[in-house]
């Protein structure tokens, strides 16, 4: 951007909330422009001088952050209507004024901070791990084919940021659908040669409450995932796997 076309300041409209049960309200802030700013640095500028555009002194808006390189998922928020990470939301590339809101699908803790516990609970529910603990050395596990490792690695990029849940029309207060992220982890752990030994347990978990049946195929998740994870393919793979599992359960085969 040339020197002349740079704005002197940028405006942010933040949806705030003082506590979990407090009513939401909006506050507008004017932040001096610096080159290469992102939403986090704009929020830091507000924190240094928590005064609204109208000149009223206020409390600094709260948000969560950690890695600042889009691998931890902590700074997820709704920026100009789209859920994404604040750290990779560059000010120069955003429409002004910039509207920041918390991801309302999750319980709001304060301002832009949400409680993503439901995702971690879902990971426990679907057993998104490989049980190898025991009283003796189990020895080396079976090898994984390189071709499989390559696509499984893509699934492992999930950072539980919650963007796919925020975009999903079926994840809301009226439904208990766990959302795309934990489902995709079932595909990841079932693809692992050692993890596959507990395949049926994970499939049974997603055939239970809040499981894969809640997916309505709006396919928003795959469009918004910041890591480009093929979430809808994972869900389709699991649709096939659960249909197979339900046939095996009903008619009886390998597990009887």
């Amino acid at each position, binding site marked *: 951007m040339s020197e002349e076309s740079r704005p002197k300041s940028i405006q942010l409209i933040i949806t705030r909330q003082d506590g979990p049960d407090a009513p939401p309200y909006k506050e507008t802030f004017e932040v001096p422009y610096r080159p290469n700013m992102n939403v986090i640095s704009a929020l830091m500028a507000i924190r240094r001088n928590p005064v609204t555009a109208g000149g009223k002194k206020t409390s600094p808006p709260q948000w969560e952050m950690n890695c600042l390189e889009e691998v931890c998922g902590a700074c997820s928020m709704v920026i100009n*209507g*789209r859920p994404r990470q604040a750290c990779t939301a560059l000010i120069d590339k955003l429409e002004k004024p910039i509207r920041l809101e918390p991801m309302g699908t999750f319980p709001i803790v304060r301002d832009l901070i949400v409680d993503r516990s439901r995702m971690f609970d879902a990971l426990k529910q679907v057993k998104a791990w490989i049980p190898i603990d025991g009283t003796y050395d189990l020895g080396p596990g079976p090898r994984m084919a390189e071709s499989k490792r390559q696509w499984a690695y893509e699934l492992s990029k999930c950072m539980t940021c919650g963007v796919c849940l925020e*975009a999903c*029309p*079926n994840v*809301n207060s*009226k*439904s*208990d659908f766990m959302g795309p992220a934990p489902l995709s982890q079932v595909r990841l752990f079932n693809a692992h040669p050692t993890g596959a030994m507990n395949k049926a347990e994970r499939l049974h978990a997603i*055939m*239970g*409450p809040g*499981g*894969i*049946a*809640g*997916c*309505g*195929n*709006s*396919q*928003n998740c795959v*469009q*918004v995932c910041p890591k480009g994870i*093929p979430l*809808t*393919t994972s869900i*389709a*793979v699991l*649709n*096939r*796997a*659960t*249909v*197979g599992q*339900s046939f095996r359960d009903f008619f009886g085969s390998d597990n009887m």
Partner: protein
Amino acid sequence: MEDHEYGLHRLHSLLGVIPIGLFLIVHLTVNYQATKGADAFNHAASAMESLPYLLFLELIMIYLPILFHAVFGVYIAFTAKNNVGNFSFFRNWMFVFQRFSGLFLVIFLAWHLWQTRIAMALGTPLNYELMVHALSNPGIVIFYLVGILCAVYHFSNGLWAFCVHWGILVSPKSQRIGTYVSLVIFVLLSYVGIRALFAFI
């Protein structure tokens, strides 16, 4: 109900195609006979009416599946939080249309059933004349036009969703080609349904 969520959703998906979807195709095909004149339609309709144990067939193949599909479908439609405003992707629009067309069909089918099958049970003969009379009102013609388009859309898009939910279409490529196929089915069945509708006017 939570424990049976998976089974109920899959049953809902299956019943939409077999028998409801198949019945829709048969129904629209019978209607299409009206383009060949009143006699051809009356002949096709009476052939359907002459099936043995008709009421039992209707109950098992049509009424009970549609009743379950409608009740569970309304529940599904009202548990969604539609968000095409912020996420105006093609599939998300299809998702919303699927829910709205389904809700409209509940109203449309209740009316349609009252005007035809229940009237027939109460003694009015179900023939070409009945439909000509019913469609003499332009408001009803529009109502039927929207009803037919909703039914055909709900079936075509639902067939795609069935193929995904039952694990037939898995790869992104197969899902994309499946979308094109469902679009072709939508166009062809709409042609059949709308030509048949205008044969009564």
